[in-house]
C-alpha cells in the first residue's frame, strides 16, 4: 500500500522520530535497571509526575512553552542552513529584557505592558542572534562556534544583573526585583501554573509553519538552506535571507525567556533557565524542524522534564540516573536525521544500481 505523496511528506518524518524516542527509552531502561530499579515503575512515576493531577499537567505545559519557542527558534534559522546553538543565551537575553521592561514602564496597563515585554525580549534576542547571521553570511565565520560560545556572555551578563544592579534587597537569595503585576502573563486556568506562554508557542508554531509554506520570504529562506547556489541562481539574496532568518530565530527563543519571567517566575535568578535552550534544540531535531512537529516534540520534552523529577521518589532512583535518562533522551532525539539518512542512503544505492 502506498501513502499519497502529500501524506508522506507530512508524516514521513514521524517515523524516524518515533524510533528515536523508542531508542531513548530502551537505553534509559538499561540504565534504570542497572541502577537497581524497575523501569516499569520508573516510567509509571514519570507519567504520573507529568499528568497525574491538573496541577502536574499545568506544570508540564508550562515547561513545554520555553522548549517550544526555542525549538521553533532553532528551526527558523535551520531552514536557512544556520545552526543556531545560541538558543540557551537567547532565552536568557529575552528573560533579561522582560525583567527590564517589567520593572520599568509600570504606568502601562496590562494590555500594553505584556506586548511590550514580549516585543522587547523578541527584538533583543533577535538582534543578538542576527549578529552571528551577519558574521556567517558576510564573512563565513562558523555559526556553531560563535553562537555556542557567546552564550557565556549572556550568562555572565545575567549573573551581573542578578547580583548587582537589579538585586532585590528584600530577598535573601540573589534574585532580581520582581516585575510589575501589569507585565504578568494571564493564567489560563486559575489555581494552576498554566500561563499564556503555551498559547503563544502554539500560535507561533502555526505562524512559522504558514510563513515557510506560504510566503515568498519563507520560500526564499528555505531555498538558501537547501541549496545556497541554487538560491543565488534563482536571484535570491542569500546574505539577506540568513540575516532575516537569524533575527526570527533569536526572537522566538527570546520570547521563550519572556514567558519564563512574565508567565512563571516573575523575577530572574541564576540558572533559572539553564538547559532550556538545549532542550529546545533537541525538540527541534525530534520535530524534524517542522513547526507543527515541534509542538509535539516539545510537549514530549515538557513531559520528560517535569515528570522525571517524580522518578526520584516514585522509583527510588538517584538524581544522577534521572539526569542520565533525560540526557539520553536528548541525545537520541538527535538520531532522527541519522535514521532518515540511512533510509535515504539505502534508497540512493538502490537507485544507482538501476542506473
Amino acid at each position: 500500500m502506498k501513502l499519497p505523496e502529500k501524506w508522506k511528506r507530512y508524516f514521513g518524518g514521524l517515523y524516524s522520530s518515533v524510533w528515536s524516542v523508542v531508542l531513548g527509552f530502551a537505553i534509559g531502561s538499561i540504565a534504570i535497571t542497572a541502577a537497581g530499579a524497575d523501569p516499569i515503575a520508573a516510567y509509571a512515576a514519570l507519567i504520573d509526575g507529568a499528568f497525574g493531577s491538573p496541577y502536574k499537567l499545568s506544570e508540564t505545559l508550562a515547561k513545554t512553552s520555553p522548549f517550544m519557542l526555542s525549538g521553533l527558534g532553532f528551526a527558523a534559522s535551520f531552514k536557512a542552513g544556520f545552526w543556531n546553538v545560541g538558543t540557551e543565551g537567547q532565552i536568557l537575553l529575552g528573560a533579561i529584557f522582560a525583567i527590564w521592561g517589567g520593572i520599568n514602564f509600570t504606568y502601562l496597563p496590562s494590555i500594553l505592558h505584556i506586548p511590550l515585554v514580549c516585543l522587547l525580549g523578541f527584538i533583543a534576542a533577535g538582534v543578538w542572534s542576527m549578529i552571528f547571521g551577519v558574521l556567517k553570511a558576510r564573512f563565513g565565520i562558523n555559526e556553531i562556534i560563535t553562537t555556542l560560545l557567546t552564550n557565556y556572555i549572556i550568562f555572565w551578563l545575567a549573573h551581573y544583573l542578578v547580583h548587582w544592579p537589579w538585586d532585590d534587597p528584600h530577598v535573601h537569595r540573589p534574585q532580581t526585583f520582581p516585575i510589575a503585576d501589569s507585565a504578568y502573563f494571564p493564567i489560563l486556568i486559575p489555581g494552576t501554573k498554566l500561563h499564556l506562554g503555551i498559547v503563544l508557542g502554539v500560535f507561533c508554531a502555526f505562524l512559522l509553519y504558514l510563513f515557510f509554506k506560504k510566503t515568498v520570504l519563507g520560500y526564499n529562506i528555505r531555498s538558501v538552506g537547501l541549496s545556497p547556489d541554487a538560491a543565488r541562481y534563482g536571484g535570491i539574496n542569500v546574505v539577506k535571507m540568513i540575516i532575516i532568518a537569524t533575527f526570527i530565530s533569536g526572537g522566538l527563543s527570546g520570547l521563550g525567556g519572556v514567558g519564563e519571567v512574565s508567565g512563571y517566575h516573575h523575577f530572574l535568578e541564576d540558572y533559572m533557565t539553564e538547559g532550556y535552550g538545549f532542550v529546545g534544540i533537541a525538540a527541534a531535531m525530534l520535530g524534524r524542524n517542522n513547526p507543527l512537529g515541534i509542538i509535539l516534540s516539545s510537549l514530549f520534552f515538557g513531559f520528560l522534564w517535569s515528570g522525571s523529577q517524580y522518578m526520584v521518589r516514585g522509583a527510588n532512583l538517584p538524581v544522577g540516573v534521572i539526569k542520565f535518562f533525560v540526557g539520553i533522551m536528548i541525545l537520541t532525539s538527535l538520531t532522527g536525521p541519522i535514521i532518515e539518512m540511512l533510509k535515504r542512503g539505502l534508497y540512493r544505492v538502490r537507485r544507482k544500481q538501476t542506473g
Partner: protein
Amino acid sequence: MSLELQKRHKVEMRNITKRFPGVVANDHINFEVETGEVHGLLGENGAGKTTLMNILYGLYQPDEGEIYVRGEKVKITSCRDAISLGIGMVHQLFMLVPAFTVTESVILGAEDAKRGFVNIRQAEEKIKELSERYGLEINPRSKIWQLSVGERQRVEILKQLYRSADIFIFDEPTSALTPKEATSLFSFSRSLAREGHSVIFITHKLRGAMEVCDRITVLRRGKIIATVKSESTNERELANMMVRRDLVPPIRPEVEVKEVVLEVKGLHAFDEDGNLVLNNVSFNIRRGEIFGIAGVAGNGQSELAEAITGLRKCSGGEVIINEKNMTNAPPQRIRQQKVGYVPEERLTRGTILDFTIAENIILGYQADFALRGILDSKLIDQYAEKVVEEYGVKTPSVDSTARFLSGGNLQRLILARELSREVQLLISEMPTRGLDIGATEYVHRKLLEAKKRGVAILLISEDLDEILALSDRIGVMYKGQIVGIVPTSKANIEEIGLMMAGAKVDAKGKQNETS
C-alpha cells in the same frame, strides 16, 4: 564447443540477468569478447551497459547466468577477483591523488615492496617501458595536477597495464577528451588489441564506436539488440538499433539575425583561488542567433556563464544586455532583463532537490506568483501542471520532490522553467551532458524552437557535434580566452579541435577574424 573455439573467446557472459527493484537491468544477455578485439558496448543511458560491465568487474552479482574468462567458468565476487583475472576498468571519473607523481599513482595498491620499502626507480623503469611499448606518452615524474584530462586517463590505463591487465573496460572514455586526445586513445586501443589484449568500450557516441571498434554490441532496455561488425554497419543503423527510431539531425531554422541582445566586451574574472579564468573575452549574440562556445571543460566556460548571469564578479570588462550595462548586477536584476540560464550543475544549481516540482518551477520567478508576499499555491500548481505536461516531465504529481526525477527529466524541468517564461537571452551550459539520445534530441528541439522565436542563445558544450549542429557561430575557448570565432558554415572540425587544444593561441590573429 571445441576447446579451440572456447579459447578464442576471452570473455563470455552467458544468459546474464540482473534485476533491481522495479527494473530488469540486464535481461538474459549473451556477450562475448574475443582475443585481440576492440568491442563496443553501445546504448543509451540506462540501457544496462554499465550494469553488465559492473557484473564483469565484480561490483554486482548477476541473478542468473555464467561468466567464462579464457574458456574457464569463473565466479567474480569482487574487484579483487576481477583484477586477478586480468580485468581492468578505467572509470569515467578518475580517482587520482593530485599531489602524487605518475609513478606513485600507477603503483598505488600494487606496490612491490621489499621490507616495507618501495622501489620507485624500478617501477619508473617499468612504466617507461610500458608507455613506450603502447605509445602512451607520459612523463613518469610529473604530478597528477599538472596533467590534462587526457593524460590522467593515460595514467589510469597505465595503472591497469602495470597490474598486467589483459581485458580492459573503458567507461565512456572519450566524454571529456579533445578530438585529438580521442584519436590518440583510439590508436592506443588498437595497439592494445594488436598485442592480443581485449578492449571493451562502453559508449553512447556512435562516431567514436564506429572508428575504433571491431564489433559493436547494441543494448536497449537491458536487452541485446544485435552484435555487428563495424565495417558492415553505419551510424544511422546503429542509432536506429539504439533508440528504435531514425536519428534526425536537427535542422537549424534560418532566422533573420537582428539586433544585438548580449554584448560582452573584454571580460576578465578570477576564480576562488585567484587564477585568471576569463581573459579578455569579447563577443556578441543577436536575436535568433545561437552562439556556440566549444572547448574542453575547465577552460573558463562555466565562469563565463556565471559572469553573464551575475553569479561571478567580473574584475574588468562589460556585460551589456539589451543595451543596458549589467556588469556585476545582482542575479535578480539580470533575470529581470529576460535572461534564462540552464546551468551545468542540474542538481545543485538548476534545481533544489528537496523542493517539490512545483516549487522548483517557480524558482527565480517566485515573486511573480505571489500577492503581497503570499504565494498563490493554486496558481503555482496550475502553472506547474501546465508546463510539466507541455515539457513532458515524467512525475506522478507536481507535489513530489525533484529528488526522484531522472537526469533527463530534471533537465526538462529546468528547460520548462527557463523557456516557458518570455526570455530574450538564454545561457545554456552543457545542456545535454549525460542525457540519452531521446532526451538530447528533445533539448536540441527546444533550443531551436527558442531560436525561432528570436531568443539569443549562448550554447556552451563540450560536444563538438552538438555545437556544429546547433550554432550559427562558434567561439572556441582555451585557458579563459576566446581563441577564435568562426561562422559554422566555414567551420572545420580539425581546426576547431586544434584551437580547443590550444595550438592556435600563438598563431597571429589569423583565426581571430570574426563574422
